[in-house]
């Protein structure tokens, strides 16, 4: 199966082509995508780009929906929860 390489919070990982960024995060063992405004860990909920819980920073662009964006070669993903 074709693979793509992405970097999650500074750690490289190889995932199946076509995987969502949310999938890459889960495979990398990152369980939280963001911290809520009162500091609680949050993770993807709706899976369809409606709830905005899965938002992360992709290639420097904040507030991207990790459940809706497919992994691309060399993509840099940073989660709010890691900051």
């Amino acid at each position, binding site marked *: 199966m074709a693979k793509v390489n992405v970097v999650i919070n500074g750690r490289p990982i190889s995932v199946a082509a076509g995987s969502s960024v*949310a999938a890459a995060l889960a495979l990398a063992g990152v369980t939280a995508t963001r911290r809520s405004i009162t500091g609680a860990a949050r993770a993807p909920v709706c899976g369809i780009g409606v709830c*905005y819980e899965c938002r992360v920073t992709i290639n420097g662009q904040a507030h991207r929906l990790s459940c809706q964006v497919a992994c691309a070669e060399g993509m840099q993903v940073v989660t709010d929860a890691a900051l």
Partner: protein
Amino acid sequence: MQRFEIVVVGAGPAGIAAAVSAAESGAQVCVLDAGAAPGGQIWRGGAERHSRTAARWATRLRQGQQISVQQNTQVVAPLAAGELLVERPDGPQSIGYDRLILATGARELLLPFPGWTLPGVTGVGGLQALIKGGVPIKGRRVVVAGSGPLLLAVAAGLRRSGAEVRLIAEQSDWARLLAFGAQLPLDPARLLQALRLRATLGRTAYRAGCWVEQAHGAEQLEAVTLRHGAQRWREPCEQLACGFGLVPNSELAATLGCAINAGAVVVDYAQQTSVSGILAAGEVAGIAGVEAALAEGAIAGYIAAGRPAQAQPLLARRAAARRFARRLEHTFALRAELRQLASAQTIVCRCEDVHYAALAEHPSWRSAKIHTRCGMGPCQGRICGAATSVLFGWTPESIRPPVAPVALATLITTSSAHSINLEEHV
């Protein structure tokens, strides 16, 4: 600006049927869809791979000579009359139309209970969608809870993906389910579907009159408390999929001025909304399933293309699908206990972390929104708005464009030439 006779928003079953029917009647059609491929949520990941029916419709859409399908395209706001602002990966664009068909589908109804914000708690369709995106589930212990036929379909999919489904907890009771089941033999196709699910699910525990009261864990879900009659127990699991049916995505219709009733866009026998030249089809016009969506979409497509006679034979199919949907709605009506699950400190608005107690003192959605910021985060009330409708009977109002979070550059490029008032709307 690109201009088309008919613009369809959404490429789920209703949108595909609408576009195909209109184009085959000779109209120039454009389909705007936020997804990467046609299919919507139900035919996710490309309609062609989903089922024979889905594949047939997808083929007709692809082969349509007069259909422009624009994927990864999010409708942001109405501009002047007959014009929409859309955001695409290559930037903003305005799309003009003579007639508009809204097929924006539905999302899951998620209800708050203590612990529902923990990582590991998702919707039912939500978990299915995440797994299709590649989220690993093999070997994980999952509780599937909430209400409706989706619970069974998703649980079967989870088993096939290697998850350990600990329990399916359906909040509706056996009396209602059996009354519903007794009518199924009248419908061989649906009975066959039910039998196939039964075979896949094997000995997976299914409890009716059962629901999740609480999710436990520090930074990640570790267990749920389940309730079944007088019985209450703790079930260890890493994943909880919990959803209570669907709610229409009627936000764009609302910003266009279409009348909304009980969350759904109001349509007449010809799928026309209260606004002249704007039609609606599928779940956005009332939750009724894929059969109804296909019939409604085709009817809307023919009507918009000026071929009402073509729509005539579809009316009976639409009526039958809607009758079935009403039975489903009755069967899976939500029990009163679900409105009492949230404690004072349970977060209801997940974007702004607004607790139940802070909301309960307000008389309306508007009041709560002004005083607590409930519904003012990035989801724009799509999750908490539906939840507070159930909890407090509120009607989300004052829906204003943009209907989705959007790059400022999109608004800046277009606001100079158009009537979006940034001060009022952002």
